[in-house]
């Protein structure tokens, strides 16, 4: 193969992984939330909050604290959603959409207030996060640079996939979460705190989404842009469904979306007979297809109490 082809493919694979990271992190977090019975449509809001506050944190406090700020911001968004849905019983869809709206606006608002000076052309930036190379492995042809010369968030995300699957399926906390999501009444009767479990899971989904958001601002561009999440929070929710609520499968869907993302930037200039937009549509069509087939065959592992508010009946 010609060197240039190798480079193009290698670049594509690298971009695929890089672009998949934010959405992968959010999807893993959302898996926990939905497994406990809460659909967190505020994920997009948490992501953009992470992107913005991560950026701000880095500007004022440096890289590591910046990432921490992003996580905290996302977690707070999750807390708000949890309070509305778990505590007050607000409809989960509505609560999530309102929170997303709020934080999309708040971040753009604050960005301008804090950094905009009339007449300034350039917005402040931070140097993109350093890439960490893993020796030896990075020299594997094609895959090497793609997989082993990336930023730390990507490594973290990839490690998180098997780790979260382990937690969910093999530890007692995962069992508690799953029981709350399947049959909250039975869990309550057994003495499990349904409310606390759901709170924690939704906060986790916010925190991870915030972390994913920080990847957007700190790794890809080095600054904040309005609405830079581009509905990735919602895509993460689609990924959870595609993955049948199993963290192990999220990576495939995330890579699929990352692939079409990477392709979009490259195909626009290439002459291909099939319009590139059809590639963009593919992940959604596939997901709908999976939903349909799984519904017909009854294999969908939707947590039974998803979107149903739980309130203890007592007299």
């Amino acid at each position: 193969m010609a060197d240039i082809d190798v480079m193009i493919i290698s670049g594509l694979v690298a971009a695929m992984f890089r672009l998949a990271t934010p959405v992968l992190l959010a999807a893993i977090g959302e898996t926990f939330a939905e497994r406990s019975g809460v659909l967190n449509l505020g994920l997009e809001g948490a992501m953009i909050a992470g992107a913005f506050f991560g950026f701000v944190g880095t500007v004022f406090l440096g890289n590591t604290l910046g990432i921490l700020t992003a996580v905290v911001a996302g977690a707070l968004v999750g807390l708000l959603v949890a309070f509305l849905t778990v505590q007050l019983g607000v409809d989960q869809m509505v609560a999530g959409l309102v929170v997303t709206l709020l934080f999309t606006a708040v971040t753009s608002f604050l960005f301008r207030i804090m950094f905009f000076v009339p007449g300034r052309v350039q917005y402040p930036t931070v140097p993109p996060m350093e890439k960490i190379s893993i020796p030896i492995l990075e020299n594997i042809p094609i895959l090497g640079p793609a997989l082993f010369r990336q930023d730390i968030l990507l490594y973290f995300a990839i490690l998180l996939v098997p780790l979260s699957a382990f937690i969910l399926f093999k530890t007692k906390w995962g069992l508690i979460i799953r029981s709350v999501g399947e049959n909250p009444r039975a869990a309550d009767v057994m003495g499990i705190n349904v409310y606390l479990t759901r709170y924690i899971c939704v906060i986790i989904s916010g925190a991870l989404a915030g972390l994913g958001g920080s990847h957007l601002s700190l790794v890809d561009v080095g600054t904040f842009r309005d609405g830079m999440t581009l509905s990735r929070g919602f895509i993460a929710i689609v990924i959870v469904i595609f993955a049948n609520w199993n963290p192990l499968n999220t990576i495939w869907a995330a890579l699929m979306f990352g692939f079409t993302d990477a392709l979009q930037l490259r195909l626009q200039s290439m002459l291909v007979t099939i319009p590139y937009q059809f590639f963009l549509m593919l992940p959604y069509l596939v997901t709908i297809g999976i939903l349909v087939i799984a519904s017909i065959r009854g294999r969908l592992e939707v947590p039974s109490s998803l979107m149903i508010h739980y309130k203890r009946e007592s007299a």
Partner: protein
Amino acid sequence: MEPSASINTRAHQTKLRMERVTKTFPGVVANDEVNLEVAEGEVHGLLGENGAGKSTLMNILTGVYKADKGRIYLNGKLVTINVPRDALDLGLCMVHQQLSLVERLTVGDNLILARIREAPPVLDLKTIESKIAQLEEEYGLKFPDLRTRVWQLSMGERQRVEIIRALYRGAKLLILDEPTSLLTPVEVKQLAASLRRMVQQGLSIIFITHKLGEVMSFTDRVTVLRRGKAMGTMTTSEVTESQLVRLMIGSEIGPRELHRPEDLGQGAKSKPVLEITDLSALDDEGLPAVRGLSLSTEEREILGIAGVAGNGQKELAEVLVGLRKSTGGKLVIKGRDVTNKSPKEIAKMGVSYVPEERQRYGVARDLSVGENLILKLYDSKTLTKNGFIDNSKMRTLAEKQIKEFNIAAPSPKLPVKHLSGGNLQKLILARELSQSPSLLIAAQPTGGLDVGATDFIHSKLVELRDAGTSVLLISEDLQEIMGISDRIAVMSEGKIVGVFPSDRANIEEIGLLMAAGRK
């Protein structure tokens, strides 16, 4: 089945004593100064009709409800039970009719959850496996593999899981709520054997049931509840079924009012309205609920179906109005075969339905009284024209019905969620009756209502009957059935086990048929 004469030789120490327990809900006294005493190592039956107060009493014992008055003693010591956790910690475990297992998870998972606080971070089945093997030994219960998912198990196996879970949790007193309702005959035998083993080990069991046969074959002693009061505790081997029935139902029958006047010489046989032949249907869990049921009703009669809840009545009613598919048999209304037709087609035949689950099938909570009253008329010529609803006609109709049925609503615009239970039922009745149906199916029409509302509804049903309608009255309340029915059918385990004209009905005979159970 071993007779309970094989009384175990352990000294009869009292394990549980509930003293003067009282609990009232708005409008009804569920438990009225109830005394209950359960000894160590015995199977103690709790017998009574539905609504007698058995579930309430047990809910108090397990911490779901808090009693208004009364005390609970365990092994002689006074205990306080405020939340379910307290009861569990004291060793009081209940196995409900609706099993509280998490179906998607495995058996092992469900067991771990029972003692989740002590579980290690990483789930480990080995310790559980050995403990379970131990329990299997002790109690002779064969247990499904820990790795199977609960939804794959049969009802009998699920129940065994629940029982073992309670034992694993260290239950000292086990409460079983209608345990045989979900079991096959073979499984019932197995259960009986297991219970024997358990009490031999010193466990106490409270066995809630409405079936006489089970009381006789499972229990050592039995306490009968009727309308919230404890009627007495007897040793099973020393009492007969008829005696129990009398305690359960009472021997007074309400005044035989509102009867069809002995036919004024009209010799002609009335035409059959509803003809059910060999009908079968499954319940929500996929188990047979209606098993080859045959019955017919005539014009101008009230046919009361007596029976304890859970014998297929709910499913029967739903099949009759098209809300549930039947799996066999034929349904004929006014000569037309309507087996498995849609609710709409059946309604067109002149069938009206007063559902048992009022909130679920009877009303749309977000709409107004007036809008609920026309629920069945949404596409009829009387109310609609060219797809538009005539609002003034709707208002007139609503006002008329509000007046006629004495519904406590100042105007038809009142949101229906503000209506009390009794008025809600009157609304549903008004709606269904105003269609001048040929066949009215009324399931538990006076459940939870006060005397005034009950009497009113009864008189309306009689009025309807006199006007020619065939009324199928399904009720757990034997008084009600005997009070206004022309004929009485008894339903047990999905079949009709007897039909009597009401003047030949003997309450004890009916009570026995109702409580037939399995021998």
